[in-house]
């Protein structure tokens, strides 16, 4: 019942938000808190070894699912809190209420339901539908500003990711054929059980279709072009959800199919697919990071880089363990949502996202400036933040597995991205503002969200609560590692 309630709570909030825009922010906050509470209790039970099931097996939750569920629920709460301040601050810049304001909270909640459904629903065809609906319901959130640029970004987002989703659909249906023919249910455990007996061509074709299809949604190169556009135009709260957890939903699918590929004796070295796709993505993103002009695009390219790192980590971890993969997947959500919250407030302060037009963010608005530079340090993979631990673990695993060339390339690309991110972030945050300093009133709720988002980013860099550590190890073991 708990699992169903996780979906029902934001569903009810969407209906309440439709009925009244006055209560919408509070209903959304309450629903996201309920979802987080239920996700936490469910994850604790999973960490103790249970595999949860509800709705006659229609809903289920294992360790990797629980981890992703926690991430969606947590970013959902911080995005709800952040929206309460940010939308009003943005509205203050306009003379009238933006036309999409009334649609924001209903869509926000439905978008959240679709993302929460991804780790919860058991049937793989229904998981595909949930992922497809994340795009559909977030299209008008990306187009929130209702400008030509925002609509263009929303169109590119919908067109490219829908094309990807349709390609992935064929992969899902091919897997459906293989798994049912092997006499197994079409669920994650069913796929793993059926994998050794599947025709290698069936499994490999389905995987390649997933890699292209879900790769478009995850922002893998060369299908990444929608991502910087959508992130530069969407409200910061939506960027946090898109970047922190929505792109990860597609990557979640690619990670979950890996153990099935590895279990099939007819597929030689499946990790190579992950290494090639991952390194290509990290490499291209690192070079693109050098030449950005917009600070929200900077974080968007960093998201592409992180998606590539996670995929590469999966390839590197194949021979030893997948702890680094899971930790990076986990830490990315906290770091990226935090960065977009800071970027959104920087937009409120300066009224522009142009890197060249922004100087001295720390002088102008110290909390935002410090958050911006801390976020940049964190996503670049520097200590003491959670991403440092995960990237260190990935590189250790890579060298330990004897993958010197791939790991060396990854080190070079991460280094390049590190320099690019810190160069741009340094220009934005330090120095003196070009215009005479004008007092800007920052929205309290958004600052609170920034503080909440900072806590796990910082704490998980040096301490993991034991149940969470167990959950991470169990999730890593599901991907074929020893945990």
């Amino acid at each position: 019942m708990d699992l169903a309630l996780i979906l029902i709570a934001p569903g009810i909030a969407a209906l309440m938000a439709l009925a009244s825009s006055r209560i919408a922010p509070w209903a959304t906050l309450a629903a996201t808190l309920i979802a987080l509470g239920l996700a936490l209790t469910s994850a604790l039970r999973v960490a103790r070894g249970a595999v949860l099931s509800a709705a006659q097996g229609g809903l289920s939750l294992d360790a990797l699912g629980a981890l992703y569920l926690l991430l969606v629920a947590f970013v959902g709460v911080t995005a709800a809190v952040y929206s309460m301040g940010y939308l009003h601050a943005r509205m203050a810049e306009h003379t009238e209420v933006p036309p999409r304001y009334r649609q924001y909270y209903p869509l926000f909640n439905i978008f959240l339901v679709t993302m929460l459904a991804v780790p919860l629903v058991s049937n793989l065809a229904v998981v595909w539908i949930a992922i497809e609906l994340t795009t559909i319901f977030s299209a008008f959130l990306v187009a929130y500003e209702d400008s030509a640029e925002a609509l263009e970004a929303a169109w590119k987002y919908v067109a490219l990711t829908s094309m990807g989703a349709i390609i992935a659909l064929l992969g899902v249906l091919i897997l459906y054929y293989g798994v049912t023919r092997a006499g197994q249910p079409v669920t994650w455990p069913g796929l793993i059980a059926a994998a050794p007996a599947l025709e290698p061509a069936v499994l490999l074709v389905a995987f390649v279709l997933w890699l292209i299809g879900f790769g478009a949604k995850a922002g893998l190169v060369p299908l990444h072009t929608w991502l910087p556009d959508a992130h530069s135009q969407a409200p910061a709260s939506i960027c946090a959800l898109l970047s922190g957890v929505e792109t990860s939903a597609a990557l979640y699918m690619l990670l979950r199919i890996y153990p099935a590929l590895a279990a099939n004796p007819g597929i030689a070295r499946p990790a190579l697919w992950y290494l090639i796709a991952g390194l290509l993505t990290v490499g291209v993103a690192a070079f693109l990071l050098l030449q950005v002009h917009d600070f929200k695009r900077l974080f968007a390219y960093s998201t592409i880089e992180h998606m590539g790192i996670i995929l590469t980590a999966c390839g590197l971890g194949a021979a030893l363990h997948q702890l680094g993969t899971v930790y990076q997947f986990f830490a990315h959500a906290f770091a990226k949502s935090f960065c977009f919250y800071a970027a959104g407030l920087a937009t409120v302060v300066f009224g522009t996202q142009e890197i060249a037009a922004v100087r001295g963010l720390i002088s102008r608005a110290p909390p935002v400036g410090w958050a911006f530079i801390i976020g940049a340090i964190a996503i670049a993979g520097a200590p003491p933040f959670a991403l440092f631990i995960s990237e260190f673990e990935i590189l250790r695993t890579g060298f330990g597995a004897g993958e010197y060339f791939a790991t060396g390339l990854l080190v070079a690309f991460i280094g390049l991205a590190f320099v690019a991110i810190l160069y741009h972030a340094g220009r934005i945050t330090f120095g003196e503002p070009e215009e005479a300093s004008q007092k800007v009133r920052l929205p309290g709720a958004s600052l609170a969200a920034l503080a909440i988002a900072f806590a796990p980013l910082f704490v998980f860099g040096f301490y993991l609560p034991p149940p969470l550590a167990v959950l991470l190890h169990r999730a890593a073991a599901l991907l074929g590692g020893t945990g």
Partner: protein
Amino acid sequence: MTEHALEIARAVDGFVAALFVVFGLGVIVTRQMLGTLYLFVLHALALSASASVLAFAYASPHLGWVALITFSTKAVAVPLVLRWAAGSEIYQRREVDQVLTIPVSLLIAAGLALVAWVAANPLLQAIPDRPFAGINLPTGLMSMFFGAFTVVVRREGVAQLMGLLIMESGAFFASISIVSNLSVIAEVAAAVDVPIASLVIGLLIRNIHRVTGTTRVGALAVLRERH
């Protein structure tokens, strides 16, 4: 089912598959927006017909549902939803905007058909137990390629949406020949998904028209990266 009846079913399915390809090609080359929509409806009807033939041949009620759902969503609901969401003035206007000329488009489409045929082969060898896969799998792949090609070469929003829907029909055309037992929940969810996606994309097109004065989404290029 007797061998003779199976042969007849395969012949009928082959004929439907040929129509499916022709209607898909039509969407690539038709200049009239309304014509594109009519061809899409015919394309969906061909998918529904193929699903009906396969439902009969495999004695599969699930495929019967797929036929019914395809007919009611793609052939009926999508055109109605689009007319309401995008506005009749948008898709009734003559569409002359295409990146490539029609002969070049046809030539590329022929190449894509060949690629689809070759690409389907490894999978066909892995699934010898499905008598209709030899027809439906390459045909469905062709339709997916045609749909993707339409999205790339058409600049109009509605035409690009038709491309996406044709891709989706292609995926189903290919898969009904190998999956005859999709769960009911997945069928219902798929039935809801297509009209919702059409509604949202239709509304997006109307908003683009309202703000930019055009539905030539292919010409929107404000957000290109500066160097």
